[in-house]
């Protein structure tokens, strides 16, 4: 399949500071590609280089096999949906959408036809005469996307356009955007710091940190097989258990946790003895009060500190005996665990295959107050 967008060893330096450091990736035609990273990781800089607002210090950007280095932003076959949308307040909806077509000197009748059909597609056919400040947040969103899509760009770039919306609308727009993308078939490159947005909408996600891509893969891949400590922490929820690795008599690796007990590890091939690691276990991989018939090798006793009820996303906050750390355990709402209360002692367990270990790092994915 042809690559709609191909980026090679792209680097951007602002003085001494390297914002984007040797990033390479390809986006296939018609795919929804997300770049996920915390604020300040360089994702906006990367997007602005693709749009043409920043000149790369090094590297190549190709769109449909054409080198974009010397091409001005107004000549590139890409369009950018801005974070705050940047809909022109002095024009109405129709004039906003027609703006790009007028710059291409298309005839009035063609413009009218195209604007009409794109408004139809985004589901706002009646709104062409409205002023921008008469639109709701979700409508503005759709008009901003329509304004770009009407130009039929090879790649549509989106810079966290859902950031300003309230939670319910954001959930709704996630699905809307995904549907819109599969309907129009345009290649989307979407940047966000919200891992749920990236996971729900994308065919492929690149996780970015400190100017570099940590991992590129399908959302499932990133979730189940993270290849770095950062990805494990940033994508989805995870419990991070500091452990020290040593070998048993049979040569198998064991992880010694803060409580002084050993737990089996599996799944992570290249461990070295005596080193400190972080062991990651997903909250939903932890079983509550597993029966002995399930033969779970790793179990520990915990005190329930709190029940975090949130419907289908309910969780237990537990503290393992002998360790000073809070762990999060998914609490299935199937009536099975309704008798668990705060300050109870429960047993939890997990299969060694569901835990992964990475060398100990001090990185923080958010600032704790």
């Amino acid at each position, binding site marked *: 399949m042809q690559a709609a967008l191909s980026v090679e060893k792209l680097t951007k330096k602002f003085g001494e500071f390297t914002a984007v450091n040797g990033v390479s990736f390809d986006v296939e035609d018609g795919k929804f590609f997300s770049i996920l990273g915390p604020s300040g990781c360089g994702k906006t800089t990367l997007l602005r280089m693709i749009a043409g607002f920043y000149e790369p210090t090094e590297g190549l950007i190709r769109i449909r096999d054409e080198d974009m280095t010397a091409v001005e932003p107004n000549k590139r076959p890409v369009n*950018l949906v801005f974070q705050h949308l*940047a809909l*022109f307040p002095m024009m109405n909806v129709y004039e906003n959408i027609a703006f*790009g077509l007028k*710059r291409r000197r298309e005839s009035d009748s063609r413009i009218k036809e195209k604007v009409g059909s794109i408004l139809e597609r985004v589901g706002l056919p009646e709104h062409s005469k409205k002023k921008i400040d008469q639109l709701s947040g979700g409508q503005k969103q759709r008009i901003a996307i329509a*304004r770009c899509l009407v*130009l039929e760009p090879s790649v549509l770039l989106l810079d966290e356009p859902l950031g300003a919306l309230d939670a319910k609308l954001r959930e709704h727009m996630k699905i809307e955007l995904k549907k819109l993308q599969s309907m129009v078939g345009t290649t989307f490159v979407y940047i966000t710091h919200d891992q749920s947005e990236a996971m729900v909408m994308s065919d492929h996600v690149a996780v970015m940190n400190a100017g570099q891509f940590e991992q590129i893969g399908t959302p499932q891949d990133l979730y189940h097989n993270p290849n770095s400590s950062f990805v494990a922490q940033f994508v989805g929820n995870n419990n991070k258990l500091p452990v020290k690795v040593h070998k048993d008599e049979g040569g198998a690796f064991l992880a010694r946790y803060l409580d002084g007990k050993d737990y089996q590890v599996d799944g992570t091939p290249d461990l070295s003895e005596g080193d400190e690691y972080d062991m990651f276990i997903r909250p939903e991989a932890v079983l509550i009060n597993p029966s002995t018939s399930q033969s779970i090798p790793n179990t520990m006793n915990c005190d329930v500190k709190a029940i975090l009820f949130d419907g289908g996303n309910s969780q237990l906050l537990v503290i393992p005996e002998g360790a000073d750390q809070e762990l999060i355990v998914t609490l299935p709402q199937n009536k099975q665990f309704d008798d668990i209360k705060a300050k109870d002692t429960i047993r939890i367990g997990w299969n060694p295959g569901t835990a992964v270990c990475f060398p100990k790092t001090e990185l923080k994915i958010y600032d704790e107050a």
Partner: protein
Amino acid sequence: MTKRSARKIRWSFFVFFVPVFLWLFLMIVMPQIELLRMSFVGTDFYGESGFTLGHYAAFFTEPIYWLTFVRTAGYALLVTFVVLLIALPVSFFITKVADLKVTGFLMVLILVPFWVSELVRVYGWMILLRESGVLNKLLVALGILKQPVEMLYNDVTMVMGLVYTTMLFMIVPIVSVMESLDDSFIEAAHDLGAKKLTIWRTIIIPYCMPGIMSGSIIVFMLVLGSYLTPNLMGGKNSIWFTEQIYNQMIIYFNWNQGAAFGFLLLLLSSILIWVALKITGQDWRKVIK
């Protein structure tokens, strides 16, 4: 509210209101009313004074009067336009291009000359431009000119002087509107295929229109009513309408005619501004803000 507190409020209201009212009424409204009355009073052949429209009629029947006004208004428009042409890129540079640290400094640079009186500034220009002035000396010394040239007392110099003295009043309102222009509008237009000139035409100027209009009105009125600069820098041929008023009142001692001219200036400039606002489709309430 009790009666007592109501009375209290009324007292404090009067304390602040009366001085302002007296000031406005005695110093501004009363003299204006007296001038208005004067403009309609004329003396007939026998020295009897009575009501007349003759002073107003004189403006329309004597070509020298209305031609002076047309000339003045024409030059005021020209100056306004030139000031606008310079102020737009300057404001853009101050608000969008320059470093945040430099912005304040640049604004001070524009403000500082206005701490000095207009008279002094005009004399400053005269020192630079006159036949024995700094510029002539320099050009002759450099061999560009064989002999000094008189650069004062012509229309070009006068326009330049008026542009210089009114620049601030255009830049300040435009800068304050342009500051609120989100950079992403400019980038979005660029991204959608617009060239630089198109961005100015379709995004920046329409957005800044309230600032442009209020700046233009101030500059236009200042130029139309200015006396010093055209008088000192303009030639004998470039008589300004304010000079006509001055001449009537001071030289011919015809206060009635001068008063009529004064009110005509007020009326005609108001009409011009109203027309300009209508043409550009601006709401005067927005512009005044």
